[in-house]
């Protein structure tokens, strides 16, 4: 009897956690499990002629082909080239905007904040179509301005410029979001710190460099990791612009390669294996980035 009463625990916490746990299982664990299951199988044809495809267990065969896929490595290199532009520019602009908005006596604050944030509300595909217009020479207002001025117009789809063109779409869309996160963190800082700094004779520049940025470290780490993950997941911008130019192949970045395997070549099994690998890379990279940031933050404090 006594053991039974001691064992009885209140049910409420479990009940309250249950919906979240169920959702987690339904929309997270099961799909991941299914993807792993798929990645270990493949369609193979039995019989002659047209034959009939049947699902068979192939072990790690899909992983071996995914690792040996040279197109994937080319896609990774292109993604890195894109990320080298996208991540620092996004973070730099977001931080600059947040610091500028935080300076006292700057007018039109809420308007500027909204204007910078607004592009975030535009879906990636629509933004890409929009920018596509600007990039296509025959319809581009930019090209028109250059030619009217008698200058050579920029080629937005060149071998190098294409990375800037695609990164630009993502930067335009994500600076606002990152800025809001950083700005909110700035607003949450105690005003006494600034007052003390001012009494000590610090200028706004010094306050920004010596006080605000170090205090922003946690928010900067978080937004940087988001941007890194955003880089790994780049898909809709190049995929939408692809139909407008010969410079973007259907396997331009890793997710496009996975899409191609799954939905153009109809091999969802290989596609699942590649996805699992990419997910692993994402997790490892995020952990590594966090570790580096934490280490540096600890050292500086």
């Amino acid at each position, binding site marked *: 009897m006594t053991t039974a009463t001691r064992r009885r625990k209140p049910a409420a916490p479990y009940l309250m956690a249950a919906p979240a746990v169920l959702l987690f299982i339904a929309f997270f664990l099961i799909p991941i499990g299914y993807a792993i299951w798929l990645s270990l199988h493949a369609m193979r044809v039995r019989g*002659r002629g*047209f034959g*009939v495809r049947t699902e068979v267990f192939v072990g790690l065969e899909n992983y071996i082909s995914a690792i040996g896929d040279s197109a994937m490595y080319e896609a990774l290199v292109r993604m890195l080239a894109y990320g080298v532009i996208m991540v620092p520019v996004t973070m730099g602009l977001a931080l600059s905007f947040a610091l500028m908005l935080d300076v006292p006596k700057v007018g039109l604050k809420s308007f500027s904040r909204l204007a910078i944030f607004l592009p975030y509300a535009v879906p990636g595909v629509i933004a890409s179509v929009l920018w596509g217009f600007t990039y296509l020479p025959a319809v581009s207002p930019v090209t028109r301005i250059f030619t009217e001025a008698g200058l050579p117009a920029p080629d937005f789809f060149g071998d190098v410029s294409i990375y800037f063109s695609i990164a630009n779409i993502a930067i335009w869309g994500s600076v606002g979001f990152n800025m809001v996160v950083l700005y909110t963190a700035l607003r949450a800082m105690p005003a006494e710190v600034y007052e003390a700094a001012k009494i000590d004779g610090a200028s706004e520049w010094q306050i920004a460099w010596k006080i605000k940025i170090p205090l922003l470290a946690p928010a900067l780490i978080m937004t940087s990791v988001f941007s890194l993950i955003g880089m790994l997941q780049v898909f809709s911008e190049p995929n939408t612009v692809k139909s407008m130019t010969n410079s973007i*192949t259907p396997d331009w970045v890793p997710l496009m390669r996975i899409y191609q395997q799954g939905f*153009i070549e109809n091999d969802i099994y290989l596609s699942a294996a590649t996805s699992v690998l990419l997910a692993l890379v994402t997790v490892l990279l995020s952990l590594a980035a966090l570790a580096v940031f934490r280490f540096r933050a600890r050292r500086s404090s």
Partner: protein
Amino acid sequence: MRRRSLLAASSAAMLLAACGNGDDEGGENGAAPAIEGDENAPANLVFWAWAENIQQVVDLWNTKNPTQKVQLSGQAASDELVSKFLTAVKAGNAPDVVQAEYQALPTLITNNALADLTSAIDDRTRSAFPEGTWNLTSFGGATYGIPQDVGPMMLFYREDIFTEMGFSVPKTWEEFGVLAKAVRQKDPKKYLTTFSPGDAGWLSGFAQQAGAKWWSNTDDAWTVAVNDEATKRMLSFWGGLVNSGDLLGDPMYTPQWNSQMSDGTIIAWPSAVWGAGVLTGVTPGLKGKWKAAPMPQWSASEQFTGFWGGSSTAVSTSSSQKAQAAKFAKWLNSDPEALAALAKIGLYPAASAGQTAEVLGNPPEIMSAQPDYYTTAAAIAKTARGFDSWGPNTNVTYGAFEDLLPTAVKNKTDFTAVADQVQNTSLEDLKKQGYQVA
């Protein structure tokens, strides 16, 4: 027994069904091993299609067949539909009827997703289509779809600009090449046309015209010839013109293409019969300025064209109402009223009776310079030849072309080398999947 229990269940519904189907063929389901059941039994069918405004044709069916309702679900076309449909079959919630492009059929068949309709196709249905059209939906002696629309290719050109510049319509590809250079010399702002490298369906139409046979299946083993002589001749022709700058190499269907088609930068477009509908949307201000002519020929003495696009109506293996589904598919593509409705929404019906001027009516407004547009189109359609067969991995072949050809245009490299690479990719994939390869 089955019939009686159904009658008992809803005799009124059955009566209605019988009335509604007065003008259709009677329940002619004889010894049918593949398609079982009563095609006149009440049904609720789900139909996946992407053709614009096809709801109008479905509505027509629903008014005439109150006990056999068809519910349309609009879907995206091509690869996306194929993946979605295959997934749905696997998940057990596939539609009963699906609009499937011809080149997608082999992929669907080998995935065991399409019902064999051979036994459901009676003589009347069979004779409603040109025999060649059945080749598009029949594989290994069995028919898996009712042909819906075809896209015989033809050459659209700006008649006003051709007249103004003193050009005549090229009869051969050689003349086409000469004209491409002439256009550049006369007006450096203009191009004869653009070669859009990312459209494998368009490319396969050119290959068909040149006489290519990309796939064949003899003794149950596959032969792939994506790099055959005809394809290479065709690719080297386009490659020469694009790489020398005589033609544009930009993709079509972009905002830029729309503007170039409208402002006279591009003055011709090799397309298919449904291209008139596209022109209406893209160049609304050019009514009566476009005309269509047969495709340029590889040899002045012959007359051939290829197919670009086109689709069929098929029944899924998982459907529990296959007989009724097959009946709807047959009606949709061969009934005179349905054909008229299909033509009205811009599809060029595959059925012979659907290609006459009476059904198709006046030419689309954009082609008003050519009152006999549909007569011309029908004559061109008769010269169309397709591949002997589509391959079981056409999607992989298409994907490889769409991957490599844009890069070849960008880097100005040899187009025929692309054909060799695509050939390797296609063959390797077939072997990997376990097909017998000759």
